[in-house]
């Protein structure tokens, strides 16, 4: 059993917008039985029927858009790494999606949304995906809710592979991926959207579509992974000076970023979890923040380096998107431009910062998802004007005279989250390092992971053609 019924909407005055609040302070399992047992309610009134289907159809389609992000991540990561590792990075993204969905179905979803509270909401556990065949009820069907959540889980997992690209053993990737999707991310979910302690605070946390819950989880885990691995061979000179290792395909990077941009219109507007009139302003703010992030990163990078780097602009687009993911429901339209733009600025400096620390992140995942995700979550404390159901009140932002309490909560949220993810992910990577080993051999790294991990190069040659293997770059 799981608590999807908490997401059921309530169509009277107080309104659909409050649906998420219901979740807090409700005996989850009890409510489930109640709603499930009376599906007839939904059938009697013909008008809600269309709305019911519409809600589910839209969230399913939003989930499809979010799954499409997997292709975007795969391309961005492939493009920013070398061609000799291109099969490996594509395989990882394929597996994040495939194995990740299974792991989340079997273990993670139950932890995140299952009934049966342990330790007062800090943990919870339930088995698997029972109940998802149901086709009656109100609000989101279990199948719809799981579909959408599974797409998010795949996203969280996939972020890590970018930062750890070009040097991680495939078997070890499998191990860490499993634990992140089946345990670390679900526990974060439990605490937050699962109605756990962060949702039960007097001033509850606010993170509409998951700047922290999804993106920073991936970002901070990515950071621990990159630290545990160490930089790629030759990435830093003996003098400590960074020596860039250019990615092998900028068109892949930009195409990937554009696909992510498209997918985000499922990610953010879909997080409304209903087909209602709030979806469109959310979409609009998502659009403007993305645009602003790309322009800001490009402009700053142009000023700093004299030439605007294309992959930095793409990172800026994504930073704008990550930044607005948390505050998108609560801020005014103009604020989305500002928040996206700040995201774009941050990403430029953050990438340079981690480079100086010699934490080698080929795709900028730590900066885009970890740092900017955290910033986006905090921005709510300043810019929040509207109630997005999480917030539960208007004018909560400091700029609207909202006081420090939301800032305080948001700080607790991002700090606890940072500590939890870095500690658990750090332990995980250390454990793998000791047992399976985390990093491929120097020779394999030099030759490329494609041949040694997967059997043949990602860009094959024609044996009956010129007959010689293309040198692998």
């Amino acid at each position, binding site marked *: 059993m799981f608590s999807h019924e908490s997401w059921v909407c309530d169509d009277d005055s107080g309104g659909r917008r409050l649906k998420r609040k219901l979740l807090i302070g409700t005996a989850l399992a009890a409510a489930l039985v109640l709603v499930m047992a009376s599906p007839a309610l939904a059938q009697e009134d013909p008008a809600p029927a269309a709305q019911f289907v519409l809600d589910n159809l839209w969230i399913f389609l939003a989930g499809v858009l979010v799954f499409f992000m997997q292709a975007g991540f795969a391309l961005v990561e492939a493009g920013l790494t070398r061609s000799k590792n291109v099969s490996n990075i594509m395989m990882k993204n394929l597996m994040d999606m495939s194995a990740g969905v299974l792991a989340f179905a079997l273990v993670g979803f139950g932890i995140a949304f299952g009934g049966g509270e342990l330790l007062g909401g800090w943990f919870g556990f339930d088995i698997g995906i029972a109940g998802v065949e149901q086709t009656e009820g109100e609000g989101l069907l279990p199948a719809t809710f799981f579909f959408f959540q599974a797409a998010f889980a795949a996203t969280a997992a996939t972020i890590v592979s970018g930062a750890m690209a070009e040097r991680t053993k495939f078997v070890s990737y499998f191990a860490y991926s499993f634990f992140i999707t089946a345990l670390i991310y679900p526990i974060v979910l439990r605490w937050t959207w699962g109605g756990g302690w962060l949702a039960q605070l007097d001033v509850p946390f606010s993170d509409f579509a998951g700047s922290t819950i999804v993106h920073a989880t991936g970002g901070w885990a990515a950071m621990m992974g990159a630290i545990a691995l160490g930089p790629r061979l030759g990435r830093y000179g003996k003098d400590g000076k960074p020596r860039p290792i250019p990615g092998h395909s900028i068109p892949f990077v930009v195409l990937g970023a554009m696909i992510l941009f498209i997918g985000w219109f499922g990610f953010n507007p879909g997080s409304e979890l209903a087909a209602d009139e709030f979806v469109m302003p959310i979409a609009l703010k998502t659009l403007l923040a993305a645009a602003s992030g790309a322009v800001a990163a490009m402009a700053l990078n142009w000023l700093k380096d004299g030439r605007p780097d294309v992959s930095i602009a793409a990172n800026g687009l994504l930073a704008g998107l990550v930044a607005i993911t948390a505050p998108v429901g609560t801020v005014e339209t103009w604020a989305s431009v500002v928040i996206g733009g700040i995201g774009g600025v941050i990403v430029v400096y953050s990438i340079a910062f981690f480079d100086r620390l010699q934490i080698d992140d080929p795709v900028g995942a730590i900066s885009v998802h970890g740092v900017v995700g955290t910033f986006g979550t905090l921005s709510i404390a300043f810019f929040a004007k509207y109630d997005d159901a999480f917030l539960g009140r208007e004018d909560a932002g400091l700029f609207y005279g909202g006081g420090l309490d939301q800032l305080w909560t948001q700080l607790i949220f991002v700090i606890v989250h940072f500590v939890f993810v870095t500690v658990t992910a750090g332990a995980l990577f250390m454990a793998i390092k000791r047992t399976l080993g985390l990093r491929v051999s120097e020779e394999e790294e030099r030759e490329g992971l494609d041949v040694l991990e997967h059997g043949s190069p990602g860009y094959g040659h024609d044996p009956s*053609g010129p*007959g*010689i293997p293309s040198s692998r770059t």
Partner: protein
Amino acid sequence: MLHLVTAVIQPFRLEVVKDALRDAGAAGMTVTEVSGFGRQGSHTETYRGAEYEVDFVPKLKIEILCTADESERVADLIVEAARTGKIGDGKVWIAPIGQAIRIRTGELGTEAV
């Protein structure tokens, strides 16, 4: 005394040439993708409704370092294996080499091959 036998061949003959040389006991060779211009002439390609000439055709260049007395046989082997009888089969030429060294061991001359 060493020789360097260089051959420019049709790419799809490489496998046959390689096998012939290996069977004859050749120790090694170095192959380069090259573009050839010769009697084979140009061909016409079209792109978006316009024509253009392509003068160069893909070839492979094979270089084999060997002792002076082996070089003729190596050249003959290549000629035999690479021949299709059509224009564009390519050329083999032999150049004198003053010295050779195996990097791994520092062996010199015929030892290095």
